[in-house]
C-alpha cells in the first residue's frame, strides 16, 4: 500500500493552526492587482493529521538515533541531546539587533573561533560559510584574491586535486573559475609525489588535500608536499571532512596548510538533518587573513563587535553571520569534551575503524590499500559480489550501508567510517552481517531488501520521466 502524501490527506476547508483572531481585509492595504488570483494548493489538514503524517514519515526513515550508519567521510557520530536544548537559548536573536544587545552570541562566536583556531593551528577564522562545500568555495576565493593581490591572478589558473578527492573539491575549483587537474595516487594510496612535482609550477594556484585522505590513510609525506607547494608559491588547502581522525593529535596548520575548512556537522556533532543545515568555518594563516569574508567577529575594548572594515575581503558569501545555531552546538561539544575528550574521541574513532577493518578481513573482504587506516577505511567484496547488492542486503539486516562506489579509484568500494560513538558489539554485529551476506544465494542478494518500507526503486524511470511535485503530470 502506498503511504499517502500530505496532499492526499488534505480536505477542502479543513483547518489546522489558526494564529490570527481578526483577519484583516487585504484590499484595504494592497491594490487588487498585486493579490493572488488562485490560492496556492497547500495541504488543508488538522493538527493531529499533520502529526500522524510526519510521525509516520519518520518511521520510514533511519538515522543515527535508530541505526548504525557507517557512511565513509560523513562522520555519522552521535548528536548529543544537550545541544538541542542549548540552541533554544539563542533562538530569539535577530541578526540586525544592536550588537550591544547580542554580546553573549558574539562572545560565543568569538570563543568558538578561538577554539577552532587552536585545534587547526590557524591564525584567523570566519564562521560564515554554511556548509563544507561553501567553506571550500570561500577558501578558494580567498586564495584567488591573494594571488590577484600579488599580481599572479592571471597566471595561476589551475587547482590540483588528488584522484581520491571528494567531488566537491573539483566542483568548487570550477565554481571559482579554475581549471582542475587530477594528481594520481601512488601504489600506497597516498599522493604520488613525483606526479605532483610534475604538475606544480607558476600556473598552479592551490592544491586541495584531505588528510587523512578518502582511503582513510594519513598522507605521511605531507611535510614534503607542503615544502614543495611553498617553493612553487602554491597555497595548500585542507579539506576538513576527515578532521575527526586527528582532532587534538595533529593540526593542519602545523602540517603546512594555508587554509582549512571544517565541517561542524561531521566533526563537531551538528546533526546532519537529512542533508543539512551544516556549517563550514574557514581558518587561514596570517597572510590570508585580510581576504576573509565580512563580517568577522572581534573583541574590542567595549566588548565584541562585527568588523565590516576589511578592504581586501572577498566580500560576503552568505547573508548575516552564518549558521549561528550550528555554532552553538559545536561550542557545547568542545566545552563538554575539552582537549583530552576530543583526543580520546579521535583515537577511538581510529581504533573502531582499525578493529572493524580486521573483522572484515577475517570474513573475506579485501582492503586494496591496507595501510594503517585512521577513522575510516575502504574495502572491497570478494570476487563475484557486487557492492550494490551487499549494501541493499545490509538494509535488510537492519544496518545502514557504508558509502559505496567512492572513492572512485577503488572498484566496488565500500567506504566504512564507524565513528567513536559506536560500541564494540555494534561493530561485531555489523561485521557478522557483512559476513552473513556472503553466504546468501545470489538471487537473494539481487532482490534485497525485502521488508523495508519500499524495495529497490526504479531510478531510470525517475530520471527519464521525473515527477518532481505532487501536481506534476509528467
Amino acid at each position, binding site marked *: 500500500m502506498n503511504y499517502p502524501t500530505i496532499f492526499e490527506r488534505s480536505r477542502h476547508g479543513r483547518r489546522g493552526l489558526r494564529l490570527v483572531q481578526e483577519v484583516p481585509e487585504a484590499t484595504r492595504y494592497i491594490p487588487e492587482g498585486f493579490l493572488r488570483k488562485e490560492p496556492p494548493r497547500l495541504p488543508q489538514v488538522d493538527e493531529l493529521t499533520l502529526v500522524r503524517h510526519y510521525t509516520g514519515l519518520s518511521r520510514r526513515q533511519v538515522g543515527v538515533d535508530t541505526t548504525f550508519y557507517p557512511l565513509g567521510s560523513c562522520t555519522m557520530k552521535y548528536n548529543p541531546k544537550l545541544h538541542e536544548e542549548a540552541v533554544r537559548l539563542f533562538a530569539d536573536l535577530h541578526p540586525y539587533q544592536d550588537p550591544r*544587545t547580542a554580546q553573549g552570541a558574539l562572545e560565543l562566536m568569538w570563543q568558538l573561533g578561538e577554539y577552532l583556531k587552536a585545534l587547526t593551528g590557524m591564525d584567523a577564522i570566519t564562521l560564515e560559510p554554511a556548509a563544507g562545500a561553501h567553506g571550500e568555495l570561500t577558501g578558494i576565493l580567498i586564495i584567488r584574491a591573494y594571488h590577484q593581490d600579488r599580481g599572479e591572478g592571471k597566471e595561476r589558473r589551475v587547482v590540483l586535486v588528488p584522484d581520491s578527492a571528494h567531488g566537491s573539491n573539483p566542483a568548487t575549483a570550477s565554481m571559482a573559475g579554475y581549471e582542475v587537474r587530477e594528481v594520481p595516487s601512488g601504489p600506497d594510496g597516498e599522493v604520488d609525489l613525483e606526479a605532483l612535482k610534475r604538475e606544480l609550477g607558476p600556473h598552479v594556484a592551490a592544491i586541495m588535500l584531505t588528510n587523512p585522505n578518502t582511503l582513510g590513510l594519513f598522507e605521511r609525506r605531507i611535510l614534503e608536499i607542503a615544502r614543495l607547494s611553498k617553493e612553487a608559491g602554491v597555497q595548500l588547502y585542507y579539506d576538513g571532512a576527515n578532521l575527526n581522525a586527528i582532532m587534538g593529535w595533529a593540526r593542519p596548520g602545523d602540517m603546512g596548510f594555508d587554509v582549512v575548512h571544517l565541517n561542524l556537522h561531521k566533526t563537531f556533532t551538528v546533526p546532519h538533518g537529512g542533508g543539512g543545515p551544516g556549517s563550514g568555518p574557514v581558518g587561514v594563516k596570517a597572510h590570508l587573513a585580510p581576504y576573509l569574508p565580512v563580517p568577522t567577529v572581534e573583541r574590542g575594548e567595549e566588548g565584541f563587535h562585527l568588523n565590516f572594515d576589511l578592504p581586501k575581503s572577498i566580500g560576503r558569501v552568505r547573508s548575516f553571520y552564518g549558521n549561528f545555531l550550528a555554532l552553538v552546538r559545536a561550542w557545547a561539544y568542545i566545552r563538554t569534551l575539552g582537549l583530552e575528550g576530543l583526543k580520546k574521541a579521535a583515537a577511538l574513532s581510529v581504533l573502531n575503524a582499525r578493529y572493524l577493518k580486521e573483522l572484515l578481513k577475517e570474513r573475506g573482504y579485501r582492503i586494496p590499500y591496507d595501510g594503517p587506516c585512521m577513522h575510516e577505511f575502504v574495502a572491497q567484496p570478494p570476487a563475484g559480489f557486487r557492492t550494490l547488492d551487499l549494501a541493499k542486503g545490509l538494509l535488510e539486516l537492519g544496518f545502514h550501508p557504508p558509502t559505496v562506489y567512492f572513492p572512485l579509484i577503488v572498484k566496488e568500494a565500500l567506504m566504512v567510517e564507524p565513528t567513536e560513538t559506536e560500541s564494540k558489539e555494534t561493530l561485531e554485529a555489523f561485521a557478522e552481517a557483512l559476513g552473513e551476506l556472503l553466504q546468501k544465494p545470489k538471487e537473494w542478494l539481487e532482490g534485497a531488501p525485502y521488508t523495508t518500507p519500499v524495495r529497490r526503486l526504479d531510478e531510470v524511470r525517475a530520471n527519464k520521466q521525473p515527477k518532481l511535485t505532487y501536481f506534476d503530470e509528467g
Partner: protein
Amino acid sequence: MDYTPHTEEEIQAMLQRVGAGSLEDLYRHLPQEVLNPQISLPEPLPEWAVLEELKRLAANNKPAFKAFLGGGIRSHHTPPVVQALASRGEFLTAYTPYQPEVSQGVLQAIFEYQTMVAELAGLEVANASMYDGATALAEGVLLALRETGRMRVVVSQGVHPEYREVLQSYLDAVGAELRTWPLREGRTPLGEIPEGTGAVVAQNPNYLGALEDLAPLAEAAHRAGALFVVVADPLSLGVLEPPGAYGADIAVGDGQTLGLPMGFGGPHFGYLATKKAFVRQLPGRLVSETVDVEGRRGYILTLQAREQYIRRAKAKSNITTNAQLTALMGAMYLAALGPEGLKEVALKGVAMAHRLWELLLEIPGVAPFTPKPFFNEFVLRLPRDPQAVRKALAARGFHAATPVPREYGENLALFAATELHREEDLMALAEAMREVLA
C-alpha cells in the same frame, strides 16, 4: 564526558586485536614534528555546567521576540507542533537520503516541500533547498547564465543589499559582470537592458518593503533574451501574486519567515523554484516520485548527473550539504497553516505594519520613505542617526529601526510588523520612539 561507549577492557582487547599497544600508538606513523601539539582549550565541563555557561552567555543577549526589525528576517511564531515533529531523531540524525529504501521519510518530505514551494512561487519545480536566500539567489542567477550562455547580470537596487553582496562574490568567481539599477522613488525603474544580459533580478516586496509591478520588467528581460529572477519572501506569497504569474523564470528567497527561529541569522533555508525546462541546470538535490519493484510508490534522488559527487568539476554547483531540516520545518509550517492560515498570518503583518506606519509618522521629524503600497516592512527617514535610535530603543526594551545602508539615503531605518504584534505593542514602540527622538 565524550559520548564514547568503550570500557577500559574493551579498549585493551581492541588494541590487541589491531596490534597496537596504546591509543598513542595509533598515531605513531604521523610525522613526529606535528604530533601532539600544544593546544589550549578550556577544561571539560559536566553537562549541567555547559548549560550553566550557555545560560550565562544567553543572559548577555536581549532576546528580540516581537522585534520590529526587518530586512527579510522577522520575529514570527514557531509552532510547537513543527518544533516537535522536526526534532524527531529520524529526521534530525539522518544523512542525505542516498539509500532510498530506508530514507522514504526524508525523501517524501522533500517531495512535498518541492510541491509546496513550487505552488507558492507559481512555478513548476523547486529543488530540495539551498543554504539561505542570498546563496539561493546567487545559484539562481548562475543557473540563468548557464542556460543563456551569457555573462552579464542586471540587478535592481531593490534587492536586499546583503543578497547583492553575496551575488557579487559568486559572480566575481566566474568572471561575470554585475550591474546595479538604482531605485527611483523606491521602485525599480524600467530601463534599457544591456546587450548580453543573461539574468535580470528584482525583489518583490523589495528591500524597502514596497510592492513592485514587475510584469513590464519581465517582458523587457525576455525581449533581451535574459531570464527573469525574482526574490520573494515566501510568507508574502500566501497573499501576493506569485512570481511565476508575472513572468519570473526563477524565484528564490529565504524561508525564515515561515515560522523559523531567527537564530541570530541562521540556519534558515533558501528556496529555489523554476520552470521544468531548466531542471537539468538546477543546482542541488531533487527528488522524484517513482515505483519500487513491487509497483509501490516511492521517492528517490534524481537527475544526479547535475551534482558534484557524480560530475565533479563539471557539476552545476559544488553544493552538497543544504538546509534539509530547516526546509522540512518550512514545509511543516505550510502544512500546519494551510492556504488560509498562511494568508491570515501574512495579512496580519501587513495590517500591523500599516498601523505602525501611521503611528510613527505622527512623530515630529519622521518622514515616509517607502512608497505605498508596501507590504509588512517599510522604511522611514529619521531626524537622527538610525544606529543611535536603534541603541536608544534597545535601552527601552524595543528592538526596532534597522539601519538602512547609506546607498539608499541618509538616516533611513527599516521597520517590520508580524502576527505577533498587538495594537498596544505598536503604541508602546511609538511612545518610545517619541521619547528617543524628542
